[in-house]
């Protein structure tokens, strides 16, 4: 767990002002305590990502929410796809085979 001050110390190239702005904008959502926000490793990694988008990739400030929203969607999709795959894996072999052939038939039809 990291306080605001600790995040600013760990990630040298970000200011407290910037960090607060990002939390206010909802880009990073730390837990709250009586002593202020508390960041876990996921939050710190996300701060680092925003900082790289801004500094290294020169993504303009108003484009950051767009990039984050797309990334969150990708991760949401990845999780659902992974879960769906696990559900299919858990089926008996004939069911799995049926799903595979149905899937490939759909792909073939699209390629025409």
């Amino acid at each position: 767990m990291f306080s605001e001050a600790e995040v600013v110390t760990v990630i040298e190239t970000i200011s407290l002002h910037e960090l607060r702005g990002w939390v206010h904008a909802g880009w990073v959502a730390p837990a709250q305590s009586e002593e202020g926000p508390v960041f876990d490793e996921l939050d710190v990694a996300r701060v680092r990502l925003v900082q790289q988008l801004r500094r290294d990739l020169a993504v303009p400030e108003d484009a950051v929410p767009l990039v984050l929203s797309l990334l969150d969607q990708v991760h949401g999709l990845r999780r659902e796809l992974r879960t769906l795959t696990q559900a299919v894996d858990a089926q008996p072999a004939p069911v799995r085979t049926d799903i595979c052939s149905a899937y490939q038939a759909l792909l073939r039809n699209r390629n025409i």
Partner: protein
Amino acid sequence: MPKSDDPYTLLGVSRTASADEIRKAYRKLAKELHPDLNPGDKSVEDQFKNVSQAYHLLSDAEQRARFDRGEIDASGQETPQQQYYRHYADSDRGRRYDSSAGFRDFEGTSDIFADLFGHGAEGAGRVHARGQDVLYRLAVPFLDAVNGTKQHLNLPDGSSIELTIPKGSRDGTMLRLRGKGRPGLGEGPPGDALVELSIQPHPYFTRDGDDLVLELPITLDEAALGAKVEVPSATGRLRVTVPKGSTTGDVLRLRGKGVAKAGGGHGDQRVVLKVVMPDEVDKDLAEFLEKWRKTHAYNPRAAL
């Protein structure tokens, strides 16, 4: 050094490139290769690392000059291995930031999605879906969790909610605030805000189920002769009787002074006694004990 390690080659710039050209080349590559922009592609990570290292070397005028003179090699200084965001986002707790906006409309076209996520579309073509839940974590002081309290939670949009922390809340308790999550899609209702309580440790109280446990230091004479002493409890200070002849490890149980139980009633407060010697064993005490032990020897280690 293999040719591909050459920072100029990696960035695709000439040896005479200006700082600006180098920065532009790096940004172009970084946008293609940043691991968080390619969450499923493991191979980009090494490429990105090499390109970043090349850039950090060449973007520093002094380092670049030393490299050009052959004083340092392309690796420069090894930077610690970075854990990218995708590493955390793919783990279970990464769910907090996940968005279902990439597939929510599938519920309107696929029966299996509607079954899986439990909110079918109403009416052809129009999709109504419940908004996403948002997860917050709130740090709660130990005694506030025992006694119950009200605490403010600030939302990222600047608004604030007053939350009732129920008496006896445990670490990890989840509170659900209906309708305080993300807005719904179409005419779908908004999602909920889920607040996970993180109970902070206390300097001298600990919790064991519904019991509060406190270690109470007592003096040698209080232990031997018995005494009435003050004990902190969750609701204030109490006077309790230390029986004559108490010893370290003895437990005084204060009935009903513990944590509120889910089904009504309270646990107990357990006071664990700890006999503490005076800072200094003075002449009086030493003389008395010298005399006393000649006639009153006892062996507490008989069973060992």
